[in-house]
Structure formats: structure tokens, C-alpha cells
């Protein structure tokens, strides 16, 4: 027995399994690539976006031409130019590009504008009437097509305008008071040939009915008005609501049972 124990202990020291973790030598880990190589420098090393001036000062441009591509507004759109959604400056009119400053417009900004003739410069003189470009041509509007006169069939006997025989449709209808509408309804003729109340009348009908009922000492409310602090009234209201809901559920269950039986 002792020898078996000795053998067991000797063999157990050689076994890989059952060895406590602390007795295993620690193996150091080392990967080929490290975290710093992931994102740190990639933003600066991407392909160039070809920003900058595409048309120099004095060049002839047509509407839509890109003059300057930029990130943000290094240059602003001046006369006859417009800025796109990525701050690109485009030409708005055919003309010659000018790069300039206009302290009257802004003390520090730089502008790109377009003039119509080579000898003009920007900014335009202060208090002078602006130079403007029409860019339109005048055309004669086409004459309206005159429809050929419809020939009346012979023997119709109509020689002059005959007024319509049927009386004109009324544009408002007053309905008599009913239980649902004690004040009566007034329906007006609306586009689409429908007779209906105005939307605001429909929206206010509930409040109007309540006001009319209250004038008679009654109410159309299912529940009484809320009184803050009146716990008894609040309990009564919630008890009533719960009872109603249970009734509705019971009715629904009854219907379902009836259907299942069938």
C-alpha cells in the first residue's frame, strides 16, 4: 500500500492533467501587430481629396462650374456665386472669376465672386446700383388654341341660352333636432359634392352638447367632474370603471363561447 501511494505520488507529479495551475510555468504571449497600429495614423495617410481652387482669378466660367473646393468656409460665396452643401463655391452666372475681400460686408472674410466683363472688379462700389445679369430672352407666348365651334344638330330648335329647368341645389341643409343632435345640424355643400359640417364644428360638437345639457341641468359625461381631494368620488369612479370593464369582458367572453359552440 505504501509503495502504491509512493508510485501514485511519483506518477501524479508527471501528469499534465490534475496539476494545479500554480505549478505550471507561465508562458508569455506576444502578438505580431499591436493596438497602436490600428487607427492612430490612418486618418492622415488616406488619399488626397483634390481640394483647392479649380478656376483661377480671371478665368471665364459658366453657371454651375466649381471654382473652389474646401473643407469648411475658407472662402465665402460673394457676388453671383453660391455655396453647395459641402461648402464648394460654384458659379451662378457666366462671367469672370474674382477673388476679393469686402470689409463692408465682413471685416475678415474672403470672397469669391463673378463679374460680367473683364474690366470690372469686386467689391462693387458702395451705395452704387448693383450690376445685375438678366440671362433671359423674350419669346412670344403661343396663341391659345381656339376650339372649333360645336355644331348643333339640325332641328334642335335651340337658338338662345335656356336657363336650367331644375332649381339650383341648395348649399346649406338644416336637419331637425334629434336625440343625438338636440340643436339640429347644419350641413353645407363642400368641394366634392358632399354635404357635411365643418371640421371645427365636428370637433366642438361634444363640448357644445355638454354645454347645452348643463344648461338644462343634465350632463352627457359618463363620469362626474374630478374634484381633487374627494377620495370617495375617486373610488366610486374607479369602481364604476372597473365594473364596466368587467361587464364588457364578460360580454366578449360570452360571444366567443357562443361562437366556439357553433
Amino acid at each position, binding site marked *: 500500500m505504501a509503495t502504491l501511494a509512493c508510485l501514485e505520488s511519483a506518477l501524479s507529479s508527471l501528469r499534465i492533467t490534475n496539476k494545479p495551475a500554480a505549478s505550471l510555468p507561465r508562458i508569455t504571449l506576444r502578438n505580431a501587430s499591436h493596438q497602436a497600429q490600428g487607427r492612430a495614423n490612418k486618418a492622415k495617410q488616406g488619399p488626397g481629396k483634390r481640394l483647392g481652387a479649380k478656376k483661377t482669378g480671371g478665368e471665364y466660367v*459658366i453657371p454651375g462650374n466649381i471654382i473652389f473646393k474646401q473643407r469648411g468656409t475658407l472662402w465665402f460665396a460673394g457676388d453671383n456665386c453660391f455655396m453647395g452643401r459641402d461648402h464648394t463655391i460654384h458659379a451662378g452666372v457666366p462671367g469672370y472669376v474674382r477673388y476679393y475681400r469686402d470689409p463692408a460686408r465682413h471685416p475678415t472674410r474672403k470672397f469669391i465672386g463673378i463679374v460680367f466683363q473683364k474690366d470690372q472688379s469686386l467689391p462693387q462700389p458702395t451705395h452704387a*446700383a448693383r450690376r445685375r445679369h*438678366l440671362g*433671359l430672352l423674350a419669346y412670344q*407666348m403661343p396663341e391659345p388654341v381656339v376650339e372649333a365651334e360645336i355644331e348643333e344638330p339640325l332641328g334642335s330648335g335651340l337658338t338662345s341660352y335656356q336657363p336650367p329647368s331644375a332649381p339650383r341645389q341648395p348649399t346649406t341643409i338644416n336637419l331637425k333636432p334629434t336625440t343625438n343632435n338636440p340643436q339640429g345640424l347644419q350641413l353645407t355643400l363642400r368641394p366634392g359634392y358632399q354635404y357635411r359640417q365643418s371640421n371645427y364644428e365636428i370637433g366642438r360638437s361634444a363640448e357644445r352638447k*355638454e354645454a347645452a345639457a348643463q344648461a338644462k341641468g343634465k350632463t352627457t359625461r359618463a363620469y362626474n367632474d374630478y374634484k381633487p381631494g374627494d377620495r370617495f368620488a375617486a373610488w366610486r369612479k374607479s369602481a364604476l370603471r372597473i365594473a364596466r370593464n368587467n361587464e364588457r369582458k364578460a360580454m366578449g367572453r360570452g360571444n366567443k363561447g357562443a361562437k366556439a359552440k357553433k
Partner: protein
Amino acid sequence: MPLDRRAGRFARCIQCTRHDRSLPVRSFSTTAPARLEVLDSQTPAEAAPPPPAATADTPNPNTKPRARDANTVSTPAAEGQLLRNQRTTPVGSRRRRAAIASTGSIPFSQLPYQCFQEARAFLQVDRQEKLEHIRMQRQRIENLKLRAVPPQDEWIKENRIRDMKHRLEETKIAADMNDPVVKRRFEDGEGDLNKPIYRLLADRQWRAYRRKVLVQRITTMNVIPDVLPAIEPIVSTTLTFAGKRVQHGDFVDSRVSELAPSMTIQPYDKGPRLYTIAVVNPDVPDVEKDGFGYRCHFLASNIEITPTSTKVLLHKLQSETQVVLPWLPAYGQMGAPYQRMSVFILEQPKTEDGAGFQRLDAAKTRAEEPRYSRREGFNLLSFVDRFALKPVGVDLFRTKWDEGTAGVMQRAGIQGWDVEFKRKRVEPLPYKRLATVRYR
């Protein structure tokens, strides 16, 4: 003002029908010159049956509820009765109503608020002092005018008189500025604009907001500098077409602007003066020039305006002595951009003696000045310089092509009602092929 809160307490939400919508809302004023009419929304069938008539034998069981006065109810119960039975809201604060009920009708200046009365007494003493100053300054001006000065010092005397008059005007305003009755009268619209204090208050009110809007509109729409290089508006104007007010820069339908408008020109300095009104359109399309030209739609002179007489009906002006160019309807042809119709008020120069204003001879202008009797190519700056006018006011409305424009142009005999403007085709630039070594 505490009045606003009290008015709201009784009127609740204007749109809510739960609280008896037919109840009128008290407007924001301390006085009730005309009692608000009861809005009877009930149909006759639903009205409560009348109480049984009282006969000699049986006394009337339903005694009529006591009629309450909106100016004197001060208890909550009485206020409730007023609301329910007479369906009117009380006037002013409860304290005021209690004071009126106990002492009869009290004038505004004698209301029993202690601080108010103390302040009033203080201000009245101050006002008496200022009136004394006014009397003294007037005397001094008269004395200075009578004093003989050598001719080389005449300019000093004139400057001094001018400054003393300016000081006198300031004192006149200072005497009335602290008066609560003056302030209330102005706010109720009852101020007499012949008096300097009301003119100053009106000018201040105009400059606080409406003038800023006007200047912003004429600047952002480039009326200045397209028509005139610069202008400082000192008179306020309102423009009305067919009875409807037009805001500065509004679009006006061509059929509405077919007839001449009416204007009110409000000056804020004293005395009568003569104005010239010019309506200029700086957006007339010129295809040969590939630009825009000017057209004058209306020109009239010698229009007398005072701070209290401000209304001008352009179609009622004298065609011989006042109107140089009669009203031409505003029109914008199809495809052209919107036309800005700028209305300029120009003050005519004073006469040599400085008493009155020079008149412009309309007939002579029409006959002898071709530059200003022609509509096309009308240069307003040149007109202003030629007759030494001073631009004091400006207004603006816009017009564009709509369904009625063709009809308006035909009725006015204007050529081009069937002209349409279309965009000119721009030749594309030739494609520049770059060096193929570096670019694809």
C-alpha cells in the same frame, strides 16, 4: 398691468365652450366706453321660458335678479351674479371698483392710491418748475433776437438762437413726459399729434419696431442701393390697395394693384409741408442690355401733409397741378423675376424766406423736362438732384406674373402682355483634356 390677469380670470379660454362661450372677453383697457353686446347664441326655441307675468292678485314669485354694474361690483358673489345674469365681465381691478362704489365716479387723477398721489404731487411741482423754465427760455430768445450784434458775429447769434430753441423744445417735452394722463391718452390712441409730446411718443413707438422692419426689408431686397444710394426714413407710411393694408415688401395681386392705392404719410415734426411721391420699378427686364432698367409708375408733387392730416388718395390728386405721371398698374411678365415697386416720399425744398415750401410745377415738368415725363429709364436720383428734394420716406410692395396680369396689361394698353421670358442657353465650356501621363 394687473388688469390683464383679472380679465383672463373671468373670460377663461376664448375657444372653450365648457365655460359658456358666448361670454364676451373684456379688452385690455381701463375704461368701458361701450358695453360689450351679449352674444346670444341660443336659438329662440331653447331660450328659457319668460317668468310668469305678475298680476295685481298674485305677486310675481320669481323676482327679477338685481342688475349689477360692471364698474362697481366688488364682492365675489356680486361678480358671479354679474357674470351669470348680465353676462358681462367686470371692469378694472376689484379695488378700483370698490373705490368707485363707495365714492361715486372718481377721475383717474384722483384715484385713492397713496403712492400714486404722492408721486403725482411731486411730478406736479416738477412740472410747474419746467413751465417756469419754458417761460424764461421764451423770454430769453425774444431778448436775444432784439439784441443788435455786429455783422461778423451774426452767425454766433443764429447758432445760439437755434440751440436755445432746441433746448426749449426739449423742456416742453420734459414738462409733459412724466404725466400719466398723457401716457394713457397716447396709449388709447387719443393723443393730439399737434402737440410735441405725442409726436415724440409716436415717433419713438414707430422707431422701436416698425421702422426697423422697414429698413430691414428695403436693405435685404436691395431697394437701397438699386434705386437710391441711401435713405434715413423719418416719416412712416402705410400703403392700402382696395381697402386692404399691404405690409412692406408684400406681394400684391396684379388685379388689386390695377387701381392707384391710398397712403397715409405720418411726419413726426411740426408744421405742414409739401411732399412728392414717386413709384419706381428697378426690375424692368432689358434683353438687349442683358440687365434691368427703371420705370416710373407714378409721379405726383405738391401734396400737403401735416402731422394730423396724413391721408393721401393717389387717384384723387389734381391731374393738372399735382400729377406728373398718372398711375400705371404694376405688372410682372411671365418668366421675369418679381418686380419690386418702391414708393419714395420726397420732401420739397423750403422757400428762400424759410416760411413755406416750394411748389413743383407739374405741367411745366411734363412739357419741358422730357427726362422726368417719360416712364421708361426714369432715374430717381437724377430727379431728386434736379429739384433739390429730400428723401424722407420709403415703402415697398412686389408684383409677379399671375392669372390677372395679362388682363391688367391689356386694359392699361401696355405692350407685351403675351411676352414670356425664358432662360438663355449658356454654351458649355470646351472640355480640357489634361496630360494623360498623370491623369486618366
